[in-house]
């Protein structure tokens, strides 16, 4: 009940803020519509009594009134629906933008590692499909409640015992609840099979997957399996549905008995002369509606519950993120240029909710202006180091100092404004090509010259000529008929994005060239080396890149070999080769291809 009150406040509060006039009219129309239904019963009662009394004028009038009320009952709700349906769409924007602010505005990524956050966020994302409908369950429940109360009032006036009638609507309610619980349980039970069927089905209708399915001749196998899984799920669902049908029928039967009892009572009163035929008509017409109203209320109750949960999830996310936000006010300023550099002191890190340290006791000094390569096997902690520097996470132990100031004391937004980054799992923004690059520096997203310059620095300017419409071309096909690029082309754009900011203090490149061929990689690094040198002298910027390719790595001033969460080896290329450790071993492995 408290949830319901909270939900009503949340939804109607937003509606009132967005469009007070619309929501008011919608509510008035709806209430009038829901009163009209029961009023039809009242009008009919008079119609019959007047006809029996041969009061022709009154009966005729009652006939006219009945017709008007009937249509009011049938269409006022519709007009109201039009108003709140469109309003619902506006509300969706309000919720969504609120959520975007909430999830994107959070400083770190810690919440992403939490299963409860991830689950709820995923649900909230799915809720979105029905989020424009937030008003609908509340409005229809409200309408049904108004109708039910008014019907009850009218019935009680005929026979006080009829107040019990809504009680008879309880069995179908519980029957329905059990029935849907049974079906839901079957759905959960068959979820894996249903998922697999969906997976196979979507592979089967996908052109890209079609290549492999054809070459390996898997068409029939896939069809058969998909069909068998679907049929299996169907069988189990129908079995549950059958049990549900039985429960529903029993519930409905009990209500029917209550209804018959109600009519019987009034008919007896009428035979005894205590009630008029009009009263019988009223009861016949309205008593049956009690069940409809109750079952509609119950029907929307699940929607209402879902809505309540959705609202609850949003509020929960809001609370969690507020809780995770760093408490302290930034006390340090991000320096205009790096003088000394970045220092890690005894840094240890374990992902939230795990005990496994990814990094432990990392202490190192990166002087300003230096280019640093991080190498190591998968899972050694390379990317984690990058993430800590971007302040996606806070170290569990130790601290990171930027020119002597603890990173925690810097405003994260201001710090990130001085980071240029290209990640391994870069985003394929389906925007105009210029925007895909330009978002690397939002204030200049529409600055075509800046975009072209960044692409040039990323050695990707040739891409502009390769695609129709060049910088103005729409990319991606998931919502718009845009251009699909190859992996290498996407990667070049991601690099261009990383090159957008012209005065970074830290350049982070996490495996930026994995999808490029040797020629492109070489050209890129030659050019990049030239441009970083410029940036490095201007702002003392540190370039940090993660790579598997030793041909690239050896260009760095400092190479860090990360193993099991430690910096196992450090030094220049020559120093590390001389050391004869992991680096030397891996290097000679790769060099063997060229000997």
């Amino acid at each position, binding site marked *: 009940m408290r949830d319901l009150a909270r939900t009503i406040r949340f939804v109607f509060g937003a509606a009132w803020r967005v469009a007070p006039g619309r929501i008011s009219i919608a509510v008035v129309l709806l209430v009038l519509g829901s009163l009209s239904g029961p009023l039809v019963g009242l009008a009919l009662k008079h119609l019959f009594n007047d006809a029996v009394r041969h009061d022709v004028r009154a009966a005729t009038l009652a*006939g006219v009134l009945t017709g008007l009320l009937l249509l009011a009952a049938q269409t006022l709700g519709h007009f109201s629906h039009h108003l709140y349906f469109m309003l619902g769409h506006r509300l969706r924007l309000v919720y969504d933008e609120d959520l975007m602010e909430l999830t994107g505005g959070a400083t770190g990524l810690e919440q992403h590692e939490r299963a409860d956050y991830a689950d709820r966020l995923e649900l909230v994302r799915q809720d979105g499909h029905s989020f424009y409908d937030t008003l609908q369950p509340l409005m229809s429940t409200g309408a049904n409640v108004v109708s039910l109360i008014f019907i009850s009032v009218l019935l009680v006036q005929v026979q006080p015992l009829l107040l019990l009638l809504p009680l008879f609507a309880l069995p179908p309610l519980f029957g329905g609840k059990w029935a849907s619980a049974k079906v839901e349980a079957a759905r959960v039970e068959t979820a894996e099979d249903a998922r697999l069927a969906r997976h196979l089905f979507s592979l089967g209708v996908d052109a890209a997957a079609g290549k492999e399915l*054809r070459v390996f001749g898997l068409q029939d196998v896939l069809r058969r399996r998909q069909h068998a899984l679907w049929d299996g799920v169907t069988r189990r669902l*129908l079995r549950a549905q059958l049990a549900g049908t*039985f429960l529903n029928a029993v519930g409905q039967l009990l209500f029917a008995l209550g209804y018959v009892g109600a009519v019987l009572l009034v008919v007896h009163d009428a035979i005894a002369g205590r009630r008029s*035929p009009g009263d019988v008509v009223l009861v016949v017409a309205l008593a049956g509606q009690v069940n409809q109203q109750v079952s509609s209320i119950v029907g929307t109750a699940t929607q209402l519950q879902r809505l309540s949960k959705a609202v609850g999830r949003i509020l929960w996310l809001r609370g969690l993120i507020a809780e995770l936000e760093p408490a302290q006010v930034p006390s340090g300023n991000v320096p205009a240029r790096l003088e000394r550099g970045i220092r890690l002191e005894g840094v240890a890190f374990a992902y939230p909710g795990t005990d496994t340290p990814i990094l432990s006791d990392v202490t190192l000094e990166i002087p300003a202006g230096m280019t640093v390569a991080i190498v190591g096997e998968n899972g050694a902690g390379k990317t984690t180091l990058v993430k800590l520097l971007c302040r996606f996470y806070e170290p569990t132990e130790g601290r990171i100092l930027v020119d002597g100031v603890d990173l925690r004391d810097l405003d994260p937004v201001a710090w990130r404004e001085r980071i240029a980054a290209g990640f391994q799992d870069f985003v394929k923004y389906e925007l105009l090509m210029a925007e895909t690059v330009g978002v690397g520096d939002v204030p200049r997203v529409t600055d075509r010259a800046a975009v072209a310059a960044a692409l040039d620095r990323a050695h990707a300017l040739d891409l502009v000529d390769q695609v129709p419409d060049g910088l103005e071309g729409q990319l991606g096909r998931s919502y718009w008929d845009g251009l699909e690029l190859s992996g290498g082309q996407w990667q070049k754009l991601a690099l261009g994005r990383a090159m957008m900011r012209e005065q970074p203090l830290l350049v982070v490149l996490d495996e930026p060239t994995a999808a490029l061929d040797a020629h492109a990689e070489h050209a890129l690094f030659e050019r990049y080396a030239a441009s970083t040198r410029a940036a490095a002298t201007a702002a003392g910027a540190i370039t940090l890149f993660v790579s598997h390719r030793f041909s690239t790595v050896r260009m760095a001033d400092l190479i860090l070999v990360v193993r099991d969460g430690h910096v196992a080896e450090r030094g220049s290329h020559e120093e590390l080769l001389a050391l004869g450790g992991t680096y030397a071993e891996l290097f000679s492995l790769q060099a063997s291809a060229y*000997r």
Partner: protein
Amino acid sequence: MAREPSESIFTNRPAERIQILRSLPVVGWPTLVGAVLLQLVAGLLPVGFIVSTSVLIGRIPAAAAAGTGSHAAYLAEEALFAAAAFFVLQQILAPLQMLLTVRVTRRFDGAARDRLLRASFASAGIAELEDPERHEALVMARDSLAGFWFSPGEASAGTIALVSRYTTCIAMAIVVGAVYSWPVALMVLAGGLTLRFVWRHGLTIEVERLGPLWRHVDRSWYFRNLALGTVAAKEIRVFGLTAWMKERYHQASLDHLKPYSERRWKVWVLPFLPATLLAAATASAALALVAHAAGAHPDQVSLQDLALVIQAAIATLAVASWYHEADMQTQFGLRGHRGLNKLDSWRLGDETDAGGTGRDPAGLPLREIRFESVTFTYPGAPEPVLSRFDLTIEAGASLAIVGLNGAGKTTIVKLLARLYEPQEGRITCDGIDIRDFPAAAWQRRIGAIFQDFLRYELTLRENVGYGAVELADDTDVVNRALERGGAAELRDSLDHGLETMLSREYEDGTDLSGGQWQRVAIARALMAVEGGASVLVLDEPTANLDVRAEVEFFGQFLELTRGLTTIVISHRFSTVRRADRVVVLQQGRIIEDGTHAELVALGGLYAELFELQAARFVDEQPELA
């Protein structure tokens, strides 16, 4: 360019409804007949109910006059029990209708999914699936079956559900006509049907005409999902994108909402006003007339008649409403039907084409595969990828194809596997045009790793075994493929070995890393070889492997490819140099051709690329030694 549904999709709706009716038997005759009969009965029960309640009301004055316990009171009670019986039956029937609805829906959709898969697999290649018109039909059918909208099955069940609605409406109008007056019956029916038509028409416009406006929603959804998802979480923070994305989301949403809201007003409000007034006028007139008649001439219109006519008129008018069990379903589900019907119309042609002239490719190639003056342009692309392209691939040897991104390397492989057909020229295998073979038989000659190889949410056994599905149960063969592909260690590290489900979304399942999946894909291609394939295609087979694993893989390269016709595409020289022959592709042409040593000696593009890479290693040799 917006992805607007083509105009042809909107046409011929009555014919489409008939097509739905025609396709109904797929749910099975007993189910279908049962469902229709049930709807018919459900449609007629209200008639029984109003007849018996009217008799009851008509008998009340006499019963009241005779008093409790009299025969007249007994007659009234008799009518009451009849009414009660009809009411009870109606109540019990509703859950049964629901059951049959679910049954019809699931069965129809099951068959429809299989129909769609069959249509999707009908063509030998995948170019057909990428044809814009077909792609659109495919997406329409796929989305409706994947639960994004109402499914074709729901449309079918919804169509059946209309039976009870219209049965009641017509039967009730007949009652009004028979008991009181046919003109009044027609009047009420006309008012009700007009309003009903406006409803239905509104829905049609909403879906067919306003639907395209939703493309802006797709666009706003893109921003929403990007902002709320985890994919872009890092970049959003580093680049500070939240505010920008919010703005884009807002704008894209308004681009949709504004015109949508205006159009909706014209569809859902304006036409409703006159229709509502008309229906209200006819209803009021009819009810007033019969009330007047009953009051003025009780000898002609008895109390029972009055009750009957009024209840029947009200029930007739009920036709003018929203059918929650049918309207959305039939309207939206129609799209799935449309997509399916269109795809079916192409299917037969595809299946014939895929058959070839029936020559058997078993055991081929023995000598060579030749590309003879092949020209190929991707559908919709301005320039050909390959033009008058010639290449001879010697059977039993390995060929590496090298070239910059976009040079056409992967295209060669796709043409070879008949995933696309060249527009000009031909590809022959030992002199036979590969189009003469049944497509499926030829494709089974090939074992392949594509760059975007598949990651089946199935067991390890199936993921490997699907390279030669008929051998998937043969554990020895699967293990052999795994071991040769360097994935034996992976298998042994999994809790349930071969039977481990490779997705954490399933019980006891586990997720693999990119490198691990790559090994599984290699094993799958080798499984195809176990199944008799003799052409091995490796498109960037080590892209996801780390240095150590890559070196390991190519250490085995010669052994793995022995006796096979191998085509390997890679930009890693560690891979390329081990091939018997290397061709360098530039803008769809072979510009260099020879062994690694020959090409390095030639001093062309290959040598340049190789030197670039090698220069970073070779000067270290003294130190390494």
